[in-house]
């Protein structure tokens, strides 16, 4: 949690020259550009202090104070900050301004946040971070299943929200380029082409299931995956209900890749919901 603490205290690091996403149009997406962007994003992953900026961030929340507080907290993350107080207004604004990320409160006065989320997902793949006041895990699972990317539970800390927003922005930038062939974070390097995992240069031996788990997480880094989503990705169609074994395999994987398996920093447990690969968070 170190780096963004510094940010909130005003010692903001300089912005990188990561191109605003809209400008990366299709014609420019030649291999060359891809490599360049890839290199720059990979560099930004390696240096977690680097801020990723978005063109526009939209907040849909009926509490005016929260909108104001978020406006100041998000100011350094985006060129334009948009706010809406109702679901209808939010949907209109989202379709008009096409924000790069949406922060959505579930307790809206006019329509359910779930419906707003579903509606946005019909035409946009941009990250959606949900603010939920309930401690209902099933609701979170439902939201992630219909396409929300992450959530924070009220009362949340601004630091936490900023970190999650950053992670989503990074992820969405990475998604524009080809899937990375290698990732390095916290002393762990994953080479997807060679199918190799090294910790501080030392080769780690993984079972087939563990490798598939790690690959799934890394491919969706920064995003909370539900148990079901992970299970579908790794085991595909399998007989019986071995979903619970996921937790055993995951524990074994952690023992191999985490520095402190009992205090994991790479694969974070989201209680009752699933797991999140935190490699992209500062």
């Amino acid at each position: 949690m170190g780096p963004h603490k510094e940010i909130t205290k005003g010692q903001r690091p300089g912005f990188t020259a990561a191109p605003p996403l809209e400008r990366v149009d299709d014609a420019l997406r030649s291999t060359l550009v891809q490599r360049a962007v890839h290199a720059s994003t990979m560099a930004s992953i390696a240096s977690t202090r680097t801020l990723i900026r978005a063109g526009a961030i939209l907040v849909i929340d009926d509490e005016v104070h929260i909108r104001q507080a978020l406006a100041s907290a998000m100011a350094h993350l985006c060129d334009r900050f948009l706010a809406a107080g109702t679901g209808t207004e939010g949907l209109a604004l989202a379709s008009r301004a096409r924000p790069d990320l949406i922060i959505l409160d579930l307790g809206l006065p006019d329509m359910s946040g779930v419906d707003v989320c579903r509606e946005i997902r019909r035409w946009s793949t941009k990250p959606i971070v949900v603010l939920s006041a309930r401690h209902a895990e099933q609701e979170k699972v439902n939201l992630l299943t219909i396409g929300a990317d992450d959530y924070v539970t009220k009362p949340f800390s601004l630091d936490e929200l900023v970190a999650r927003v950053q992670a989503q922005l990074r992820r969405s930038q990475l998604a524009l380029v080809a899937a990375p062939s290698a990732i390095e974070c916290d002393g762990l390097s994953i080479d997807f082409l060679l199918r190799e995992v090294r910790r501080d240069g030392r080769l780690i031996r993984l079972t087939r299931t563990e490798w598939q788990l790690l690959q799934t997480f890394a491919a969706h880094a920064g995003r909370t995956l539900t148990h079901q989503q992970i299970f579908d990705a790794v085991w595909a169609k399998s007989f019986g209900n071995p979903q619970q074994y996921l937790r055993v395999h995951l524990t074994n994987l952690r023992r191999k890749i985490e520095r402190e398996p009992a205090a994991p920093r790479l694969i974070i447990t989201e209680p009752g919901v699933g797991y999140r690969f935190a490699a992209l968070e500062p």
Partner: protein
Amino acid sequence: MTVGAPLRAWITWSLILVAVVAGLLRIRQDADQAQIVLTMLLVVLGGSVAGGRPLGISLAVVSTLIIDYYFQEPYNQLTVPKPLDVIVLLAFAATAFVTTQLLASARQEADAASARASEVEALSRLGAETLRYASTKEAFDAITALVQRAIGATSCAILPGDLPARGVRSPTNPHADDITAGDVAERAIERARETGRPVVVYGDGTIREHVSTDIGTPANLTLRPRALALPLSAEDRHIGVLLVGGDRPFVLDGPRRRLLAALSYYAALGIERQRLISEAAYSEALQEAQQAKDEVFAAVSHDLRTPLTTIKVLAQSGIERWERSSAAIVEQADRLARLVSDLLEMSRMRAGGSTLVPELNTVEDLIGAALRQAEGIRNGRTIDVSIDFESPALLGYFDFVHTLRIVGNLLDNALRHSPKGARVELRAERENGSIVLSVGDRGVGIPRTERERIFQAFYRPADATLDGGHAGLGLSIARSLAERQGGSVEYVERPGGGSIFVLRLPAADVDDLGSELA
């Protein structure tokens, strides 16, 4: 068969006998004995078919005498000098008797079979009717009406087992002498309920229990039953009593007993049906109530957390502007949030609780999540974790989210009672069929007298400083959540000072994972 029918058969067949004998007398000289004997046998057979055993046997006796008297030499005398004639006579008599007997018993069997067939038909019709009735009450009324008709009793009642005996019966035909309204009947019902056997109240007022109700048809009316309490059972459980009786003794013979047994079976079915229907209605109502509760909790949770969020977020942006009180506001908001969460969890548990779903989980996963959660409340204190990473991962059957809450509460408790700079120890191990998580602190410990009270809701130690945000619910919630999934939370005194809180949960084994782990 009308009353006149046997008499007519007697007259008819006596006349036929006379006519046949008269006819045979005319040809006595030309016919040999075999023709005469066979003709007479024909008459006996015809008589037994038409008039039954008494007529058949009478005809056989008379015919034997007639053959001897009229058709065996010397004629018109009963003496039989020729041994061969004696054999003929004996053979005729024997044949006539045996065929009469055979015919009679065959006919009895045929009668009984047709009686049973009509009984079965009546019962199956009744069964279909009882099932057709929309309400159990209608079915009960139909059954009691049938019992009354069949037994000739004036009243009949079906008393489900869970209702008090008194006041439920209303004899369909009340009568001053009706025994089922009196205390004797109450005693009989009680006895039938206790023993599970049929209890009969006799004409002279005696009460006797029977293994079966085979009482027969005694001529003495005081030996006939006046009331019968028949226990009803379904799947070996006694579920009620069928009471039948009235103002005069009645007969309990074979067919009536069978009918009564079948009817009591239908009554038992009716009671079972009533029970199942009310159970279904109850569980439906329960489900609705649970859903309503969940909605209320969700709404309250939302209403309490939303303003807290606003306060916290505003204070956090205040920190950015270096406003002095902002950090304190954030801290207090966090405390309030914890308190709200504890209170909500507590009331949810008091209201029947959310459903816990124990699943196969690893203890390491649980501890990792708990440590991450505790980061905010650690306040410079360290949590030392000891887990054996060399052995296979510790597995348990527990509800992850709620167990995380247990461990979180125990860690929170230990951290709050630890001196600054002290270490809190978290240890996980397997002990037979349990996984054991112990949280140890170096606080002041807990006096012997307080050791159970700390698990009561809203408990605060007498000397506790008002450290705000702690309603004394943490340990109570922890223990209750552990017990609801087959575990426990206990206090243990820590050697060298301090406390250890021990959480036990059912362990799981990795064996059944089989090749999955390969």
